[in-house]
C-alpha cells in the first residue's frame, strides 16, 4: 500500500520535474499503444514512425514558439502564412537568385526575424492585441506568398531538401542498424540517467528527500527502455532511412528552448508576464521587450518550419502552411497550457503535438477519411482540455497539467476565481 502511494506520488503528483516528465511520456505511450493494437502493429513500424516524425516536425517546431506566445498571454494566427511566405522567398532565392542553400536558410531565418519584428512592434510597442496583429499577418503573408509565387509552385534544389527529407548518414561497421541513430539513442539514454541523478542531488541540496531510489531506478529503466525501443526502430528502417534530420532539428530546439524557459531569467520573465503583467512590470521585467521577443521568436520558428516543409515536399506552393496555426495552438493547449497565459511547458506542448500526430496518423492508417479525422481531432481537443479543466476545478490531479509544469505546481483554487479585471493594470484607481 505505501509503495503504491509512493509510486503514485512520485510518478504523478511528484515533487521533481523528472517525475512529471516521466508521467508525461507515460501518457503518450498509452495512446501509442492503443493505436498500435488498433492498427495491428502498423503504428510502431519503422517506416511509419519515421514518416510520422517527418510529417509533424514542423508542427512541433511551431508548437515550441506558440507555447511561449501563449504563456506570455498572446496568440499567433499568422504562423502558417509566415511559413508559406518565408518558404516561397527561400525557394525563389535558390532557383532565381542562385543563393547556395545554406545561405538561403539564413536568408529564410532573417525573413522570419523581420516579419517577427514587424508583428512584435505592433503587439509590444503599439499595444494592438496579438490576435488582431496576427490575423492581419495571416492575410498579409498568405497574400504575399501568392503574390510572389504568382500562385505557382517553385521547386527547390537537392541539397536544401535534406533539412526536410534527409536522414542521419550511414557510417562505420555494418551492425545491421544505422550507427548514427544508435549513437544518438545511446546519448539520449545517458542524458536521461544523468538528469535523474542530478535531480536527486538537487533535491538533497534543498534538504528535501529525493524520491525513493527504487522509484528513480524504475523511472530510468522505463525511460531508457522507451529510448532503446525507439532507437532500434529508427535505426532499422528501410536502407537509406534512419532518424530524420528534421527530427534532429526539432530535438535540438526542444532541448534549447526547454532550458531557456526553465532555467534562465528570460524564460521566467515570459511566465511572469503571462501570469500577471503588472506585477511583472513592478518586479523589473521589461514588458515590451518580452512581448516583442516572443512574437519575433515565433515568426523565426515559423519561417524555419516553412523551410522544412518546403524541403520535404521539394517545392513551395500557395497552399503551404494552411491551418498550421490551429494544429500548433491545439498542441499547446492539449499540452496543458492555460488560455489566460502564465502556464504551460515546452515538453507538454510537444507531447500535445505528438498526441495529435499519432491520432492523425493512426486514423489515416485505418483508412478514416479526412472529414472524420477532423471531427475526431476537434472532439479530442475539446475533451482533453475539458477533462483537464474539470479535474483542476475539482482540486484533483490534473492529468495533463500537473505532469507537465516545470516550476508551477498547481493552479489557484478554482472556486473563487478572481474576476479577470483584477489582472488588468487598472491603475486609474490607485489610492494613497
Amino acid at each position: 500500500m505505501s509503495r503504491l502511494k509512493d509510486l503514485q506520488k512520485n510518478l504523478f503528483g511528484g515533487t521533481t520535474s523528472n517525475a512529471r516528465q516521466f508521467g508525461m511520456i507515460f501518457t503518450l505511450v498509452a495512446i501509442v499503444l492503443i493505436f498500435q493494437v488498433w492498427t495491428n502493429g502498423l503504428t510502431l513500424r519503422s517506416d511509419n514512425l519515421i514518416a510520422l516524425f517527418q510529417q509533424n516536425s514542423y508542427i512541433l517546431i511551431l508548437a515550441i514558439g506558440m507555447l511561449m506566445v501563449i504563456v506570455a498571454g498572446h496568440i499567433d494566427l499568422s504562423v502558417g502564412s509566415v511559413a508559406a511566405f518565408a518558404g516561397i522567398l527561400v525557394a525563389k532565392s535558390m532557383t532565381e537568385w542562385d543563393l547556395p542553400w545554406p545561405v538561403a536558410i539564413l536568408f529564410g531565418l532573417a525573413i522570419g526575424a523581420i516579419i517577427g519584428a514587424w508583428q512584435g512592434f505592433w503587439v509590444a510597442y503599439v499595444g494592438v492585441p496579438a490576435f488582431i496583429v496576427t490575423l492581419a499577418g495571416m492575410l498579409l503573408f498568405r497574400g504575399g506568398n501568392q503574390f510572389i509565387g504568382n500562385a505557382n509552385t517553385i521547386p527547390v534544389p537537392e541539397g536544401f531538401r535534406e533539412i526536410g527529407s534527409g536522414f542521419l548518414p550511414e557510417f562505420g561497421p555494418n551492425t545491421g542498424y544505422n550507427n548514427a541513430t544508435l549513437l544518438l539513442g545511446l546519448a539520449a539514454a545517458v542524458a536521461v540517467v544523468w538528469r535523474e541523478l542530478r535531480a536527486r542531488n538537487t533535491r538533497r541540496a534543498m534538504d528535501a528527500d529525493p524520491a525513493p531510489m527504487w522509484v528513480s531506478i524504475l523511472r530510468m529503466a522505463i525511460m531508457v527502455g522507451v529510448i532503446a525501443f525507439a532507437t532500434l526502430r529508427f535505426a532499422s528502417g528501410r536502407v537509406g532511412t534512419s532518424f530524420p534530420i528534421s527530427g534532429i532539428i526539432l530535438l535540438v530546439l526542444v532541448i534549447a528552448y526547454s532550458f531557456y524557459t526553465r532555467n534562465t531569467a528570460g524564460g521566467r520573465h515570459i511566465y511572469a508576464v503571462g501570469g500577471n503583467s503588472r506585477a511583472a512590470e513592478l518586479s523589473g521585467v521589461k514588458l515590451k521587450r518580452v512581448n516583442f521577443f516572443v512574437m519575433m521568436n515565433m515568426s523565426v520558428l515559423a519561417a524555419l518550419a516553412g523551410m522544412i516543409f518546403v524541403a520535404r515536399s521539394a517545392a513551395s506552393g500557395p497552399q503551404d502552411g494552411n491551418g498550421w496555426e490551429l494544429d500548433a495552438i491545439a498542441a499547446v493547449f492539449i499540452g496543458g497550457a492555460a488560455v489566460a497565459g502564465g502556464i504551460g511547458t515546452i515538453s507538454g506542448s510537444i507531447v500535445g503535438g505528438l498526441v495529435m500526430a499519432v491520432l492523425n496518423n493512426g486514423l489515416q492508417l485505418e483508412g478514416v477519411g479526412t472529414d472524420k479525422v477532423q471531427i475526431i481531432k476537434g472532439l479530442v481537443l475539446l475533451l482533453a482540455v475539458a477533462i483537464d479543466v474539470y479535474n483542476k476545478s475539482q482540486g484533483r490531479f490534473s492529468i495533463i497539467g500537473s505532469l507537465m509544469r516545470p516550476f508551477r505546481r498547481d493552479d489557484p483554487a478554482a472556486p473563487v476565481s478572481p474576476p479577470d479585471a483584477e489582472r488588468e493594470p487598472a491603475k486609474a484607481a490607485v489610492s494613497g
Partner: protein
Amino acid sequence: MSDVPILLEMRSITKEFPGVKALSDVNLVVRAGEIHAICGENGAGKSTLMKVLSGVYPHGSYSGQIVYQGSESKFSDIRASESAGIVIIHQELALIPGMSIAENIFLGNEPRKRGAIDWKAANRMALDLMARVGLQEDPDTLIKDIGVGKQQLVEIAKAFAKDVKLLILDEPTAALNEADSRHLLDLLRGFRSRGITSIMISHKLNEIEAIADQITILRDGRTVETLDVKADGVDEDRIVRGMVGRELSSRFPDHTPKIGDVFFEVRNWNVRHPISADRQVCKNESFVVRRGEIVGFAGLMGAGRTELAMSVFGRSYGVYESGTIIKDGKEIVLKSVADAIDNGLAYVSEDRKAIGLNLLDDIKTSTVAAKLSKIRHHGVLNEVEEYQAAEAYRKELRTKAPTVDEGVSKLSGGNQQKVVLAKWMFTDPDLLILDEPTRGIDVGAKYEIYGIIQRLADQGKGVVVISSELPELIGLCDRIYTVFEGAITGEIARADATPENLMKQMTSTKKMATR
C-alpha cells in the same frame, strides 16, 4: 443573549486541503440579529470557514454540519446559500470594473420585462438599494470610477438585492479609510436594528470591540472560544490574548533608532496623471530619507502617496514631468523599474494580489522574482539557491506554509503579504518603500512586521512607510510627512506626532513644516 433564537450553528466543521488541515472541529453559533465577529491570526481559517458556510466549498467537500434556521443545510454552491438568504462579501471584491453600479448590483439577478432586461426598473431599484446603504452616486457610474469605500457599499447593495438574512463580510474595512470604515460600521448597526444578522471578519480589533456582540476566536483552524462582548467585558487585549494564546503587552517592539545621514532625496517632484494629462498628481514634492530612519507618509485615501512612491520607483506610475532623485550624493535617473531595483530601491505595493504577486507562482519563484540575477550564474538560474533563499525567508518571516513549493494563491492574505516582503527583502534594497504593509494582517504578524522593518532600518537602510492607520505611523516612524492632494503639507518629528496634528495637516493645503 441566550434567549435569542439561534440562526446558525456550524458543528465540528473540518476542512482539509491537500497537505493542509485548514479547519478542524470548528464550532460556531450565531444568534438572530447579532453582529458576530470572527477573529484569528492570518491563516487561522476564518475565510475558509465562511466559504464553507456560503457554499463556495460545497457540501461533501468538508465534514461537519451546518444547521441554519433550524434545519440542516447542504449547500451545493453559492446560489444555494444565497437563495437561503446567506450572502458573502469576499476579502477581494468581486465587482466588474467596466460595468456600472446598477449593472453590478443586478448582475445575474437582472429584473426582466418580457425577457429583456428592464433597465428603468433596475435603475430605480438600484437607487433604492443604494439609499439603504447610504451611497449617493448615479447608478450609471462605472465601478472603476468610484473609490474602494463606495465599491464596498455597492457590494452590500448587491447583497440586499438578494434579500439577505445573514450577511457575511470578510475584512470589509481593510482597504477603507477611517471615514468610510465608520460609515460601514454605522450601516451594520442599522442592519442589526432591522434584524439582519451579520458575521464580520476583521483584523481591526478596535472596530470589533466597538461593534460586535459576540466574538468567536479561531487559532490554527480550531475554535478557541466565543466571547460575549458586553457580558464578558471584552477589550482589544482580551481578543489578542485569545488570538495569539499569550499576552501581547505592546503593539510595537521596542526600538532605539540609529539614524545616520541623509542618503536619499527627492527634489521638486512633478508628475501628471497617466490619462488626464491636465491633472497633476505630484505637485512639487520634496522629501529626504536618512540611513536607519523609518519615514512615514500620512494622508487620506487618494492623497497621492502611492502615486508619489510609484513614480519615484522607476516611473511606474503617471507621466514624469520634472524633479530629481539624489542618492548618496549623486543624482540618479530611474527610467524603469529595473533601474530602480538596480539602484537599491524596493517598492512593496498596497495591492498584493493585483500587482504584487503572480498568483500562479509558488513561494520560491515569487521570492526571487525581483532579483533573478542573485541566483543566476553564467546565465543559468540555480534552483538550489532559489530554494534555500526562499526557505530562509520563510523561516525568518515565519510564513505559514508547508513548504516553499506551495502556490502563493493558497496562502492566507497575511502570509501572501509576507511573501511579498520576502521578495523585496531579497533584492537587498537601500531604500524600502512599503505601501500599506500591514493591510489585512493580524496583530501578531503586524508586530513581527514592525520588528522586521526596524531591523532593516538598523542595518542602515532607509524605510518609507505609507499607511492609512495613524497609530501605526506614530508608533513606528521616526518622522512623518503629511500629504494632501498631491502635495507634501508638513513634516512632523516622532515626538510631536499626534493623531490630531497629523489629521490637521493631512487635510489642509497650507504648508506648515515644523522643521
